[in-house]
């Protein structure tokens, strides 16, 4: 809600509001079975993840729910079993099962003697994505009029049959990164890194005359990351979700966007669509999603000038080039060769292997669509 921002503006007017960190004293140790699953009409192996939710004070990884029997049923009496491929991760057999628009699917989980079942979910076909566009905005960042370039990526779509109404998007972004050092010939200096969407991206057309989405913002990034430096690609998935699933995401979004403002909705539990068949008090979190999916990939070439993000983080020491360096190449690496005004050469050293080998934190394998995509793009 914009009102919240307005309120912060008013606080700023009083120049007195402040936000401080605060450690709540919460005593509960609740953990609940959590379902994370998605059935679509794409031809792939679908995945149902069963984990336990984490108590507030726990930082460890999620604990998987092992050994469950996971089955998908449709409304014509068919059923497909999923097999546990990793602890808590259950996958379908793509030769056996593929979601079909118009059918209704139900998830059944049997775990530790209890049975859980989802509400029946209708698979709705998604209309194709019309366009995924990007634009570069000049955004003011302070009072003296300093502006910063921001890349905004947006999606547009419409359903001529006016059947969709509830849209949800997810995306995977991949970009090329270069370690900006001149001694890395022997190491991996060019990599591709990926990320997933971390926000709930939903829109509905209830209030519109047409089932049309125009210029819905998927993400924005500026030069504080290297997304915009070389080549950037985004694969957008458009989901046609049910009104119930839309409502679930909408509530989660409202609750998670609370900023403590005056007009925040009072937070409330957002139940999912999977319930215990025997014990209503046995709470299951998460959501079993069923949706038609259409996808579109876009390519963006070097939209931003990105300052060197690595140099300060990596360079730990500067030594004359001819000095002996113990451990060079195993514990310490020379990443840059520089010269002073007299022509003396120096090495800049790092102890962090990620500074010489981006494969430590990204992939050194170029995605197979990469060159072809950018060739078509320009």
């Amino acid at each position: 809600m914009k009102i919240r921002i307005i309120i912060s503006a008013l606080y700023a007017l009083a120049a007195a509001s402040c936000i401080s960190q605060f450690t709540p004293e919460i005593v509960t140790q609740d953990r609940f079975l959590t379902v994370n699953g998605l059935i679509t009409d794409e031809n792939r192996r679908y995945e149902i993840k069963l984990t336990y939710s984490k108590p507030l004070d726990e930082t460890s990884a999620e604990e998987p729910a092992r050994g469950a029997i996971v089955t998908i049923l449709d409304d014509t009496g068919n059923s497909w079993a999923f097999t546990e491929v990793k602890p808590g991760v259950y996958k379908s057999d793509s030769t056996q099962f593929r979601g079909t628009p118009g059918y209704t699917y139900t998830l059944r989980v049997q775990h530790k003697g209890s049975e859980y079942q989802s509400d029946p979910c209708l698979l709705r076909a998604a209309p194709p994505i019309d366009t995924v566009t990007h634009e570069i905005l000049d955004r003011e960042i302070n009072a003296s009029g300093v502006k910063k370039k921001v890349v905004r990526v947006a999606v547009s779509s419409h359903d001529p049959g006016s059947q969709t109404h509830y849209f949800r998007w997810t995306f995977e972004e991949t970009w090329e990164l270069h370690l900006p050092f001149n001694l890395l010939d022997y190491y991996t200096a060019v990599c591709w890194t990926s990320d997933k969407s971390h926000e709930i991206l939903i829109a509905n057309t209830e209030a519109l005359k047409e089932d049309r989405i125009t210029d819905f913002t998927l993400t924005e990034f500026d030069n504080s990351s290297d997304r915009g430096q070389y080549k950037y690609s985004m694969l957008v998935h458009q989901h046609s979700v049910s009104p119930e699933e839309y409502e679930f995401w909408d509530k989660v979004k409202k609750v998670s966007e609370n900023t403590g403002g005056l007009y925040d909705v009072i937070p409330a539990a957002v139940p999912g669509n999977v319930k215990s068949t025997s014990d209503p008090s046995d709470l299951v979190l998460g959501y079993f999603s069923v949706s038609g999916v259409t996808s579109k990939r876009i390519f963006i070439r070097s939209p931003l000038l990105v300052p060197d993000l690595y140099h300060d983080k990596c360079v730990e020491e500067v030594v004359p080039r001819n000095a002996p360096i113990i451990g060079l190449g195993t514990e310490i690496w020379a990443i840059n060769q520089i010269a002073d005004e007299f022509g003396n050469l120096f090495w800049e050293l790092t102890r962090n292997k990620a500074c010489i080998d981006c494969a430590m934190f990204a992939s050194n394998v170029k995605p197979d669509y990469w060159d072809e995509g950018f060739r078509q793009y320009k």
Partner: protein
Amino acid sequence: MRNAFLILILLLLAPLTRAQVKTGTFSGRYSGVPFDTLALSVERKAGIRVFYNPAWTGDIRVSGNWENASPLGVIDRVVSPNGLFCIEDEEGNIIITRNFTVRRSFMREAGDSAVMAMTDTVVTAAESLLEGEVITLGNPADLRQGGKVVLSGFVTNSATGEPIQGASVQVRELGTGVMTNQEGYYVITLPRGSYRLEYRSLGSHDTFRSVNLYAGGRINIAMEERIIPIREAIVTASRREKLDRLESGMSRMNIQTIRLSPSSLGEADIIKSVLLMPGVKSVGEGSAGFNVRGGSSDQNLILLYGAPMYNSSHFFGFFSAVNSEIISDVSLYKGGIPAQYGGRVSSILEITEKDGNRKEFTGNAGVSMVAAHLTLEGPVKKEHSSFLVAARGTYSNWVLGRLPDASVRNSRAGFYDINSHFVTDIGKNSLLELSAYYSHDDFRFNRDTVYAYDNLIASARFRHTFSPSLLALFTLGNSHYRYSVSNSRIEDYAGRMEHMVNTTTAVAGLTWYLGSGHELKFGGEANLHLIDPGTRTPISPLSVIRPLRIDREAGVETALYADYKADLGARLTARAGLRLSSFLALGPGTVYRYNPLFSKEPGSLTDSVKYRAGSVMKAYASPEVRLSLNYLLTTDISLKLNYNRTCQYLHLLSNTTAISPTDTWKMSDYHIRPQKGDQVAAGLFFDIAGNKYEISLDGYYKWLHNLIDYKGGARLTMNQLIEQDIIPAEGRSYGVEFMLKKNVGKLKSTLNYTWSNVRLRSTGKFSSEIINGGSFYPASYDRPHDLSLQVNWLWSRRLSWSTNLVYSTGRPVTYPVTWYNHDGLQVIYYSDRNQYRLPDYIRWDLSMSIYGSLKASRLFRSTWNISLYNVTGRENVYSVFFRIENGKIRGYALSVFGRTIPTVTYRVDF
């Protein structure tokens, strides 16, 4: 509507002043001449007529020497020893009577005109200005008849002519007394005899009159204002008024008190001052709305100019929407609500507006941190009518434009409000008031989203005195509230959403003084409510926004009431009232029916019934019983007992922590039943050391029925089937309120402490309708301990200090219990509502007022007020929110005024 309003303002401003009739004086020397001779020369020299029955004056012989005397004084001197009385009419003509009249000997010399009225049984007295004046009503011969007669009159402020409410009129010989009502009117039944009448009111000098009461009559008193610029510390009522008052939970605060209190942004604020009263709380500073004895924010009826006010705040709650310059005082009824008031469950906040000065033109202007105001008032026809016009506006756009954040800099926030009020006497026994109020707020966020909201209230009130014992007030008013939110960032989606609520109200209220402390108030009211729940329109030709208008709601709310008050012996006063309220939800409209075996959801819809325009879709009626008792345990201690039931047919839909200007109003309908409240309250009032100190102790228990709560993620705007998102709830609240007050001396102070408990419970049958497993949970405004201390120290005649100290328990909040990862999204799961509390709230404020020259000859008087809000800069936590960072939940606390806020306000009265 707006045009009508402009015309009204023009009318109020029109100068209608007319010259006043002046009579001549009389000089002459006589020795033993017949009365006829004197009368003739008075008539010639003073240019007036003298009317009399020669049969009564035949024996009178006149001797005397007068220089520039008032004709009335001369005639009076001559006829009074002969058992005759004289009065003067508006032209200065003198009428001599024998059996009934009023003696007002020195009026001419006092240089004031007389206001008189004659009825069948009594002669209305003139305004009596003189301290200790002996007034004779009726003929001494009537004393022999014995029995009781009715004495009545108006008490006004001598400087401005405004009525004084709550002035006490005490009969010293009998130890009894009465209080003036809102119009400054009092009436008392006394045995014939001679009495000393003592008039007291806060802010005025005490005065007394000696009266020889042989017949019923009227004595109007103009009380002189105390010129000390330092106002009373915290004043809620005069001494006798509190002791004798029937309601245990009623507080009054006058504007001087409100103005002295330190404020956060330098604007005197009625709602923030109301929050200092015991039993009144809010969710946090800077939030709109207040909670009275456990009621929700929409359960308070705010009456301005006799009409309901739907949004009482500017700037999303940072300021009250009512300019403090137009207020005389505010009364808050939280228990023992008299039967004449209704329509809301928890409280009535009645704003008594200030009438314009009837004698001279005055005004004031002021500048604070965010706003400036100008007020002008004065007579239209001197003594008979007056106007008051006040305007206030903010210049915050200027401030916003200088802030560093670009999105804030491109934002605009503005508000203004205008009040105009016109009062005129009509004949001797009637008074007409025409009032209008308009307020506007708009906020533009980052050039493309605009919020705007407006309040418009207009009313005409007619007060008529049928007889000294029968007074009537007729009100015709309209209150209109609308807001709109428009967005034009993407042309395809350019659209506007609007909401409107409009109430036309007609009220007739009569007060009948039956004598011997018996009093009957009765009357009725009819309200036509119209609500446009939501209208959505495209605002660009390219916009694909589908226009949608949620069906307009119409409803008629009526009430008939009677309230009987009786003095049962010297110690006991009781009042019993009944208010029959009813509500008709009117068509056109559609009622959707649901399968009662399921929660109201799209899937359980079974049927829909269409109603034609004007047909009754649903009817509700409710008798509301109001009972009050006051028992004087000793002369200084009174015990008050109250019971009241209240009903509410209009509801504000809000599922946010604080109410927002973009919440929508909803009428009771087929699915949404009227909210009801039952309250029992008991109070003890102690008057200590001749009212140097007072203590009140009140306890209450309250049941709230048919409350409205919401399913998680409910959609409250643009929702035709709102009943699907609403769940029924109930509440109970109880508490004890303690107040200790020092009323006199240079140091005045008030200590309030409230201990209370508010619990709500969802009463739905289905799982989606159940909150916290259906058990009681604390409301968001439940603050068990609430303490406030206000001190006002009169340092010198030019300097005063005020300080507030506020402590309360932190409000309940909902914390998360667990979280999980969902495909890259981190989802926090909250559990039961309001199971944790924020840290305690503590605040200390300080303010200093410096008054300009006190000399009366100065043309204007200036006042500086410097205040420090939150002196210690304590970061009181307003709310908390949670984020997942590095795989761990982090809590963040937000405080609104997290440091000391200094403000300076300058004000000049002229």
